[in-house]
């Protein structure tokens, strides 16, 4: 107990710094995956994508990230047996942050497909097993999280498949796709706006201090959806049917209509990513802060200080500014296969799945969910070619990430323990 009180400000600074480091890594690399589909489909320029990412990642983290943060903070480790030695939990959480951040940095520089979520969970479970003992891990919860990693890409795939089939049926396969696109795309925009605002209202606003009833939530979500739809409709109506564009590719004008939709889903995607992945970075920070504030008492009910979420948001934005644009440019240039009509289906499905998971507090991998959604579009015969080998590697990588994050966390855990005695 003394250790914590003696080093209170040092622990807080370390936690803040490591959290910033990990969020920076997410911003520098992971965000690019979420946004590159929009850049690749030319619905957004890189500059716009960065601005959207910065704004919506940040708001996603602050508004809807609370539940996932809670899971990471106290859902994985059963802290009951640690009342006498709370400093172990502090070392562990710091080590987990540092391990996940380092692993991300190593993997990203080598181009390995790793997930931020998987590395942080692996790190926390790793230090808990070795540093505290097998019993310290809340295995039920961890099993649930791992199951959600399998379910989320599948779910996103099914949703993407259905969305893209509906697009084919209502718009692309018809005699007059351009007119139908103008008619139906606003409805998709409404769906995206409604879904994101609903999850924010139900799960997010509590942290900001607003209490609302279910009925209010639904009606506010409808209103927000309608407003976004009206804005989208205004831009869609300004698109003219361009005859010259249609010589080589009949759907050029239709895709322009989908381009408007793609901007909305890009915002949704950034929001979803912020709500889930940023929470991964700030979860351990929140755990440390909570222990330090309570002078070493674990499991005290404490409100998540807003500055913790702000650190996550800020780290992402800094990472984006420093490296994100480069990654986005490279990835975006390569993804030319995703036309707006396909990209939006994948993004909307992935964003929906991730935001719902965030709402229930499940930390899932945004990248894997997006890959599942892209596969779903491919299954709907909407993609010319997908590289199954790469997809297999992506899914294989999370099996490697878990022990890697764990081992690094164990090393850092004993280092910290050694330093502070």
């Amino acid at each position, binding site marked *: 107990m003394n250790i914590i009180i003696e080093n209170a400000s040092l622990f807080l600074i370390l936690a803040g710094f490591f959290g910033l480091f990990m969020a920076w890594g997410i911003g*520098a*690399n992971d965000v*690019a*995956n979420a946004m*590159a*589909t929009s850049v*690749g489909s030319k619905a957004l320029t890189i500059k716009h994508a960065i601005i959207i990412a910065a704004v919506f990642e940040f708001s996603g983290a602050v508004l809807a990230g609370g539940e996932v943060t809670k899971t990471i903070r106290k859902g994985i480790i059963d802290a009951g047996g640690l009342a006498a030695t709370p400093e172990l939990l502090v070392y562990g959480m710091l080590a987990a942050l540092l391990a996940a951040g380092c692993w991300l*940095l190593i993997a*990203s*520089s*080598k*181009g*390995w*497909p790793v997930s931020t979520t998987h590395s942080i969970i692996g790190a926390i479970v790793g230090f808990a097993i070795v540093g505290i003992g097998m019993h310290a891990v809340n295995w039920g919860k961890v099993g649930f999280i791992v199951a959600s990693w399998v379910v989320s890409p599948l779910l996103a795939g099914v949703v993407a498949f259905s969305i*893209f*089939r509906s697009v*084919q*049926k209502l718009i*692309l*396969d*018809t*005699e007059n796709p351009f007119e139908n696109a103008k008619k139906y795309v606003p409805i998709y925009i409404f769906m995206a706006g409604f879904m994101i605002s609903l999850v924010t209202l139900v799960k997010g606003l509590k942290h900001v201090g607003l209490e609302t009833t279910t009925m209010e939530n639904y009606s506010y979500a409808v209103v927000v959806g309608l407003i976004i739809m009206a804005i989208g409709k205004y831009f869609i109506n300004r698109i003219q049917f361009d005859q010259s564009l249609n010589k*080589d*590719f*009949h*759907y050029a004008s239709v895709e322009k209509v989908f381009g408007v939709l793609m901007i909305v889903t890009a915002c949704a995607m950034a929001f979803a990513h912020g709500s889930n992945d940023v929470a991964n970075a700030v979860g351990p920070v929140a755990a440390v802060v909570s222990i330090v504030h309570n002078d070493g008492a674990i499991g005290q009910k404490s409100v998540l200080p807003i500055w913790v979420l702000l650190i996550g948001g800020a780290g992402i934005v800094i990472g984006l500014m420093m*490296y994100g644009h*480069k*990654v986005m440019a*490279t*990835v975006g240039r*390569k*993804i030319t*296969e*995703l*036309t707006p*009509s396909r990209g939006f289906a994948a993004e909307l499905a992935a964003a929906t799945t991730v935001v719902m998971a965030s709402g229930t507090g499940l930390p899932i991998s945004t*990248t894997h969910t*997006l*890959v599942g959604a*892209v*596969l779903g579009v*491919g299954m*709907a*015969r*909407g*993609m*010319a*070619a*997908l*590289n*199954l*080998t*790469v*997809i297999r*590697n*992506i899914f294989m990588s999370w099996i490697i990430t878990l022990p890697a994050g764990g081992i690094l966390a164990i090393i850092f855990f004993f280092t910290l323990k050694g330093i502070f005695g």
Partner: protein
Amino acid sequence: MAVSNYMSGIFGNSPVKPMQVHMEKVHDCVSLLIPFFEAVVAEDWGKVEKNQQKISTLENEADTLKKELRLNLPKGLFMQVSRSDLLEILTIQDSVANKAKDVAGLILGRKMVLPKAIANDYQKLVQRCVDASDQAKVTINELDELVETGFRGSEVKLVQKMIKKLDKIEADTDKIQRKIRSKLFEIETDMPPLEVMFLYKVIESTGDVADQAQRVGSRLQLLLAR
């Protein structure tokens, strides 16, 4: 930080655009048959040779494109049309150019002269063959739209209409071939037999250009039938 990225890796190289580029090259090659036969009728052998060389060069280029595309279709690629179907269409596309090269090579090699009686019809035949390859190209150009619509709906109808038109052009070339043969039959006794034999052969080879172009369409039709 990272330069390589896995999100972009999951999208395999789409075979659609290269297929279209290949067909375009094939058509460029085939359409040279028109100036080639103009020169043959005019018996301007310098020009004939120059055109034959151009045809041969374009055929080689098409070959290279074909090989590149084959190498870029690994087995782990997930596509909505089967890999073997695509490769078969590609082979047929390529054979259209091969036939054109055969015709040009045979005529130049033997310095064959078209008898006045059939020259006019022959040029019509060549024109129709080029039309057939053009129609095959237009049809293959719809591949990207087919992918977009998931091989369903009104786009399929459009492509089927194109294939029907291609069939009609090919039927035309058969008709013209018959006409040329019967005219040749009337005058064949007055000509050196060897010359006549090769004329019959070259007529058939020319018709093959349209036949192969038609096969591109029929093979595509099999993709649409499910």
